[in-house]
């Protein structure tokens, strides 16, 4: 899968996250979270897992999280990826 255009998914509500994707030469992931100190590493691991599973190795990935659970992260990222790769 290749991020071929800008896409966004998610909301700013509590227990949710916003995902922003943009095409880029290399892969960069930035994560902001209200619980970054406690769960930053876990969020990143989840994001990387979903990207790897979808074969995404380039693009700018920005996450702003408000304490979303694993499956929410996965669902929002998957949705954003689909939007970013749609023809």
């Amino acid at each position, binding site marked *: 899968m290749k991020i071929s255009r*800008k896409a*966004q998914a998610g*909301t*700013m*509500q*509590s227990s949710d996250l*916003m995902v*922003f994707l*943009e095409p880029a030469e290399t892969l960069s992931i*930035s994560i*902001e*979270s*209200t619980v970054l100190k406690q769960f930053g590493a876990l969020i990143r691991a989840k994001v990387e897992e979903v990207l790897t599973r979808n074969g995404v190795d380039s693009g700018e990935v*920005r996450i*702003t*999280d*408000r304490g979303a659970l694993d499956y929410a992260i996965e669902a929002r990222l998957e949705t954003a990826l689909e939007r970013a790769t749609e023809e």
Partner: protein
Amino acid sequence: MVTSLLSTDDLRQACDLIDASGLTFEPPFDDLVGVYQSGRLVAVGAREGHILKMLAVAPEAQGGTLLDEVVTVLVGRGYQEGLDSFFIFTSPSQVTSFEALNFHLLVASGKTALLEYGEGLKRYLNRHRRQVAPGPNGAIVANCNPFTLGHRFLIERAARQVERLYLFVVREELSLFPFEYRYKMVREGTSDLANVTLLDTSSYAVSSVTFPTYFLKDGDPGGALQMELDLMLFANHIAPFFNITRRFIGSEPLSPTTAGYNAAMHRILPTLGIEVTELERAEADGGPISASRVRKLLSGSEPGELARLVPETTLNFLLSREGRRIWDPKGEAA
């Protein structure tokens, strides 16, 4: 559900809700959205460029997620339009509620706080990491609309006094000459100065975010606070990153807004560890050289005098077909 507010009745209700929340309904905006509950508007918010404003929730509907929903839509749609960071001005007491939405406080002063969503400042600085010199360095922020001998004179003199001079060209597109051309004129007009580095200000100095009144010309009284925020942002975030310890300005005998900004710099920057050096303006034909004087000449009938006010590089640009199209779109000048 968040919907666009378009009809006359929508607007009337939005106005009422915004007024009732102690804010002012201030057009223009690119997007105005809200949430209705049983026929009444209970939440509203607007976006103008990358500034979110007029965010209000009716008292009986507070404590829920309405604000989050409104901001989500404003940011989501803004992102689709190509924006990736967003700003909010609010009172310091509201800072924590926006921090909970992942906004970051950039500066706070007295009654106003400026927050950003999207880490734009961090990304802006990171983009320029390779241009950071050890210092001590100096800075000039200029619009260069267009680039004149006055700018050139100021830059030359400032560059001699510091290790490296960062020349921030105002990014905002609210001037006669588009940024791309202002930047090009500055680049060509300073290419012989080895220790001058050109940067764009992005949204972080003298922009409609930090300093809207600069572009409104006559400097409204509320402008003082904006200047303070602008200068605090510069001194607390930009200057330390680039090892900037001095800011150079040209004296301002003509424009009240710029003169006010200069006065604010003298007042505020030294307290934040930045030395301010004001240099006399270069003169030509018995008056200070300024970009507005050049623009006046362009709209008049004496383009011959231009050569005494602008460097050759700017003159060549102004007289080129590209340049002419900007100041003489109808092709009226000879």
